[in-house]
């Protein structure tokens, strides 16, 4: 799918041309600031669809939907699932699938509390051990794929099954572990920092992460969504408008006072991964391997090493997700993250049509995941039974991706 997306998006200036055509713009096609209308629609079609949905919600539901504390609560609750999405993005970028990632997260979530409760390991040490466990699972996946040459689907389906089983074994058949104030009390910071919606970040921290995010957003739009053929003033105007809308929206909604610390941690994590994927040789090599492993090999990039590392990163993200989920729940529940697999992939695939021109992209995945959650909760707020949430998620995913490809094909 990714090939098509990019290929067709860029065709207007990408067709083979003779030298004299280089400077002369293609005739018979109206251009706005150097971009054709279809190009604009295909670039901004899916984001526009989301904006449209939220505008409809505003008109329809008003304050029922635009309730910043409810929406921040959902964001906070979705953090573990979105951390899994981050891992999925890394894995998809290298051209592989990790189907074990949600089971890995479930097991890690159980183990972090289990080590603390059953083995009296201090919680910080339990966290480190769990991060190690998740990474090792990722390493095993990576080695199965690169050294044993097992198809990633099959390998991770297998390890996923093993992890699911290990979770059952370790939990004695699915019994939850619930530390209480009298029995192995969890330190308050564990829940507050990593899981609690009520623990709000201090204003300087919130402002700091907001500025980082806006900078990242503008940079991403500039580099990915806006074609370089667009003239500079137009570009600056668009970026300034986006920044104004975002900052204004934040100021009006007052969500800065409601950002919980686990959301801040998630955003910092996403920023870190985004920098890793965009600004380091390692990240660029990951994309290269995902695009064409053979060509990567001939360009001197180690395919096996980068593939393995992508699986390790996915495993690490699974561990983080598991830990944050357990912190939010304050207890260990077997299979708690199993259901996050499909939403995680949905968010990651939405990234290819949102702001990233067909590439799997960290911010695109974050935006896609949040968008999916809010569309569903908007409908629930409007009276649709909450049991329909997954149906809505699936339909929105298909709709957004289909819109982009239909527009591209209709040129």
């Amino acid at each position: 799918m990714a090939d098509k997306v990019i290929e067709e998006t860029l065709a207007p200036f990408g067709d083979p041309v003779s030298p004299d055509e280089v400077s002369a713009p293609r005739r018979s096609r109206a251009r706005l600031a150097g971009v054709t209308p279809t190009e604009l629609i295909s670039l901004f079609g899916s984001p526009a669809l989301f904006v449209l949905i939220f505008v409809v919600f505003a008109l329809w539901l008003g304050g029922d939907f635009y309730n910043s504390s409810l929406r921040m609560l959902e964001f906070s609750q979705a953090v573990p699932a979105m951390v899994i999405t981050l891992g999925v993005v890394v894995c998809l970028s290298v051209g592989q699938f990790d189907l074990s990632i949600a089971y890995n997260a479930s097991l890690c979530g159980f183990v972090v509390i289990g080590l603390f409760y059953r083995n009296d390991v201090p919680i910080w040490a339990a966290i480190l051990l769990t991060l190690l466990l998740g990474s090792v699972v990722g390493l095993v996946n990576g080695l199965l794929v690169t050294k044993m040459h097992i198809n990633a689907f099959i390998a991770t389906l297998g390890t996923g099954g093993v992890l699911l089983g290990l979770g059952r074994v370790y939990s004695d058949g699915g019994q939850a572990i619930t530390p209480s104030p009298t029995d192995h009390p969890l330190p308050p910071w564990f829940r507050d920092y990593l899981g609690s919606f009520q623990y709000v970040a201090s204003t300087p921290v919130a402002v700091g992460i907001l500025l980082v995010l806006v900078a990242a957003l503008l940079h991403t739009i500039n580099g990915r969504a806006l074609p370089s053929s667009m003239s500079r003033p137009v570009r600056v105007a668009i970026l300034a408008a986006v920044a104004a809308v975002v900052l204004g929206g934040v100021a009006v909604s007052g969500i800065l006072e409601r950002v919980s610390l686990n959301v801040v941690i998630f955003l910092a994590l996403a920023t870190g991964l985004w920098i890793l994927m965009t600004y380091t040789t390692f990240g660029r090599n990951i994309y290269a391997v995902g695009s064409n492993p053979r060509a990567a090999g001939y360009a001197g990039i180690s395919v096996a090493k980068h593939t393995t590392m992508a699986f390790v990163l996915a495993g690490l993200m699974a561990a983080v997700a598991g830990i944050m989920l357990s912190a939010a729940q304050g207890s260990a529940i077997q299979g708690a993250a199993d259901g996050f697999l499909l939403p995680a992939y949905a968010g990651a695939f939405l990234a290819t049509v949102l702001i990233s021109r067909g590439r799997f992209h960290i911010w695109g995945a974050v935006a896609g995941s949040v968008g999916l959650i809010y569309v569903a909760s908007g409908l629930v707020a409007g009276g649709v039974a909450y049991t329909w949430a997954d149906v809505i998620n699936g339909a929105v995913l298909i709709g957004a991706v289909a819109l982009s490809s239909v527009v591209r094909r209709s040129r």
Partner: protein
Amino acid sequence: MAMQQHRRDRRRREAAMAPGDRTGGESSVSDQRVTVQCRGLTKKYGDHTALDKVDLTLRAGEFVALLGPNGAGKSTLIKLLDGVIACTAGSLRLGSEGDAAASAGVIHQDLGLFDDMSVAENLFLGPGMSKPFLSLSSEYRSAEEMLEFVGLSAVDPRTLLRDLSLGQRALIATARLWSRGAEVIVVDEVTASLPRAEAFWLIEHLKGAARKGATVVMVTHRLEEVVGHVDRYVVFVDGKVALDEGGHVERDALVEVMSSGRNKALTTHQSGGGEPRGEVVVELTDVSVNRIGPLSLTLHEGSITGLYGSSVSGFHDAAYLVAGVIRPRHGRVKVRPGTKVTCLPAHRDVDGTFPDQTVEFNMSMGNSNRWRRLGLINLAKMRDEISAAAVELNVIPRNTDAVITTLSGGNQQKALLGRVVADQPGCVVLCEPTRGVDVATRREIYSFVTKLAQDGCAVMVASSDMEDLASLADRIVVIDDDGQVESVIDADGIEEFCSLRTALG
């Protein structure tokens, strides 16, 4: 129904042949039914005339070698026979006048068969070849008949195709065409991927098929395969039939005909030659891998080493050994410390480009450490330098945000060349640098590579294109089909070597 069709075709063909001729075709070919008749056949592509008023008649039972250098018109004729293109002027008739038209089929190098299916399944796959409900036993019976036609009666129709040798598979493809009523079977360069012994085996069997009534046309670049084996030699040069003789023709006579008027096309360069060589950059000592080796070779600063071999020899592997892309099974590859060696792979689409990515991505990949500061890449600086490099290489369009696959082949190749040299490597390995590239781009690439060597880079050009080697190489290392060094051609011998090989096609 298909079976009946098949038998009907067979009967018609048998009836068309003179009685009693099935075994002794050689002496009386001229009595045979005409299968191909070209009169003033002309094909033009714009200003270029690919075929120029060709008169040619082929008959049933003939085993014909179709020869000529690249671009002489062989493939145009094949496409016309195959019905893929239409002629500009003249006429092409399959079958003789007053008779039902014959049909022609072409077997290409990839054979068009299914490796995971059985011989019988391969033979009967396709429209009109089988009924909705298959009768396995009757299918096997007809399969056996067909196998006998190509002399493969020992092969069980239930065998999976992947378990047959390449030569046997080529014969299956032949049988498949024959069973579909093709009386003219063109075998296009199929032997190029076969080891020598198997190629000869295949040729003998094809000859057998011809004796049974087919017109078999062999297209090959290897003269030794056909000299003395075929009934007739047809040589094309510049779109015309330069030679059309039956019986025995000497190899040298064929070479002479094929070389006529071709030498002027070659451009030779005059650099390098007697100049003293620079420092050794890469040294191979008794290395071997796959079919290659043991092989010893040194690459020097500022010199361009050509590497040549047939497509069977796997000579590109020797180049990939130099580039460090593959590791030797035995022996040692020694690279001067601190030297970066980069590689332009032979197959651009499969091994070269990152298809869904931009020109910038494609050109920067493998070089991004060049723009790294404090662990992070300075994307703006990288962008500027890549754009400048693209301008220098004349990559069109100028926009390095264009997706690479939207560029023409020549421009993709230039972009990849830009990747190869972006980080100022001390040694550059270029495999088939001008494959699928037009003449103007070819010139640009030649001058770029020449300049690269003048700036002190050790360059290896592994190419099966004689013009590349004639234009660039200071010496040519020739790899034979067993992966050994056949000869090393020094600067003085390059021109002669290249014109000779070009003539052979």
